[in-house]
């Protein structure tokens, strides 16, 4: 029997597999047993009610997808009255993803969702749709620091900062989040992308641009997870393009302590449960007793001295 337990700070997860925000809701309970998951991560909520972006909100690109859902939200009251009680039925940590347009707005919603039944807060400072031209807090270390500092004083719950691939300063942003009190980093959100219909010449998304997710994103998010694991001492939660057990192992070796499965659930709603069984089998076959033996075990010591360490571009 292998030990799948993993720790994100003080929070113990029975296994390292959890959903990525925005690809999970109460509805999935009709397909699989939500008790099997390592944690539950909600779709990002905002304080106010929001409609989300115009249609089409999703399009496919080869082997992956783009989305510009936006953040439709029924508002904080609905969330506290309905969503939190739903997840309280399960013996699984609940991670609430929050967003806002300003640092003060972030602090307000953070305080309001710091209620019993919530085990950690994932801070969506990286959603590429919410602000004009896809700009987000997580694009720069300074804005990351200012929002995380405000959030830190707004709650005692663990804060997970969800980083963005839409930055040239991954390491600086990661370190800024750690310095200003983040308890873990989720690496990463979707990458700002575009697709155009060549016949109508119209962008395929109503919002013109949107976030790339699915297998195409994996090498980028994996690189970021590796960079972050090398640069900070708080846990990394790998997220981006995971659809097979090999993807999970790769993230763990790169330094992730847990992982999130997103777009794969859209293709196979049972993906997380299937991956859990696959992970157990893989570890058994490899005779690995604890997943902690894999975490950060990447063999990068042979890299030559002239490797430009962790630059964005080669």
């Amino acid at each position, binding site marked *: 029997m292998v030990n799948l337990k993993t720790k994100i700070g003080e929070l113990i997860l029975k296994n390292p597999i959890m959903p990525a925000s925005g690809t999970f*809701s109460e509805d999935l*309970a*009709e*397909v*699989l047993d939500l008790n099997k998951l390592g944690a539950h991560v909600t779709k990002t909520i905002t304080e106010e009610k929001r409609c989300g972006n115009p*249609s089409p909100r999703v399009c496919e690109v080869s082997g992956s*997808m783009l989305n510009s859902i936006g953040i439709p939200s029924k508002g904080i009251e609905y969330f506290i009255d309905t969503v939190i009680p739903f997840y309280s039925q399960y013996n699984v940590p609940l991670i609430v993803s929050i967003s806002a347009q300003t640092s003060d707005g972030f602090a307000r919603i953070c305080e309001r969702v710091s209620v019993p039944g919530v085990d950690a807060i994932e801070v969506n400072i990286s959603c590429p749709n919410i602000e004009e031209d896809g700009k987000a807090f997580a694009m720069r270390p300074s804005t990351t620091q200012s929002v995380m500092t405000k959030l830190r004083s707004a709650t005692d719950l663990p804060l997970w900062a969800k980083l963005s691939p839409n930055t040239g300063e991954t390491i600086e942003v990661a370190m800024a989040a750690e310095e200003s009190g983040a308890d873990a980093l989720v690496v990463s959100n979707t990458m700002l992308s575009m697709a155009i219909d060549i016949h109508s010449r119209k962008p395929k998304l109503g919002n013109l641009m949107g976030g790339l997710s699915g297998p195409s994103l994996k090498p980028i998010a994996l690189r970021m997870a590796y960079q972050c694991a090398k640069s900070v001492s708080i846990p990394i939660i790998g997220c981006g393009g995971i659809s097979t057990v090999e993807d999970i192992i790769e993230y763990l070796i790169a330094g992730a302590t847990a992982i999130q499965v997103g777009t794969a659930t859209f293709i196979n709603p049972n993906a997380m449960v299937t991956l859990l069984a696959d992970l157990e089998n893989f570890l058994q076959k490899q005779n690995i007793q604890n997943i902690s033996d894999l975490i950060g075990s990447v063999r990068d010591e042979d890299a030559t001295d002239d490797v430009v360490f962790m630059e964005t571009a080669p």
Partner: protein
Amino acid sequence: MTIQQLPNIENASPATKNIYEVDTFVKSNTAITEEYRLLILEAPKTILNCQPGQFFHLQCPVTRSHQPYLRRPMSIYSYSQQDCELQFLFKVTGEGTQALSELKNGDTLNVLGPLGVGFSIEPEWENLLLLARGVGLATLAPLAQEANRLGKKLTAICSARSPNALMSIDYFKDMGADVITITDTEGTSTLDNMRHIIELKISQGAVDVMYTCGSNRMLKLLQEIGNLHSLPGEIALEQQMACGLGMCQCCVRSFNRCGVITQERVCREGPVFKIQEAMPW
């Protein structure tokens, strides 16, 4: 042939689980008109407890020439627990349906469902009127079957480009429907003629409720007629989907609920909505 079920069916969390992700097997896949194909699948009984108007989310095969990534939602054309059979009627339009059209007998097709809220038939509705065109007829076919089972009287107005393109006429007749065909080439499919036919049926007392599918033109017509005669109605709507389960919020449309514009998920709150709440697009 034996049916393989994914292990999740047995290991289900029993409280809420009633949507299944399973492999089915192709029994046949044939062209029935120039544009439309009929796909017949052998499916486990468990997933065939369906309502007319519900849909399945199909994982279209990836082939050398077609690489669909997301699943494709498709309304059920026919289902039978007794025969372990699930049927879809589809038009080949893009990457997903092209890939589906290449499925051979015995091939596996992974399906997710049954999904969504289907049509309702209230006990007091004795005379049902169906109005649809093209693939919309496929969506209304299980409704005709259910109406027949309940002993309801049925009028089916079937529209197509030409008499050759008309589909499922015999199917609706077998369900005891009074079938009226209208076509573009015969000049009978105009809005005015549709209105005339429906008004005539109403004057004969042959309409307690109206059902339609997909088309903006037909929606507006039935909204007008429904308002005029205080007749209820239901429409099955389409929208592009990603997850099909309600998680991703991709498939929302606007609805008018008692004067308030709301955003509803076609996959979850729908695909069937009240005609007077649907908003023309």
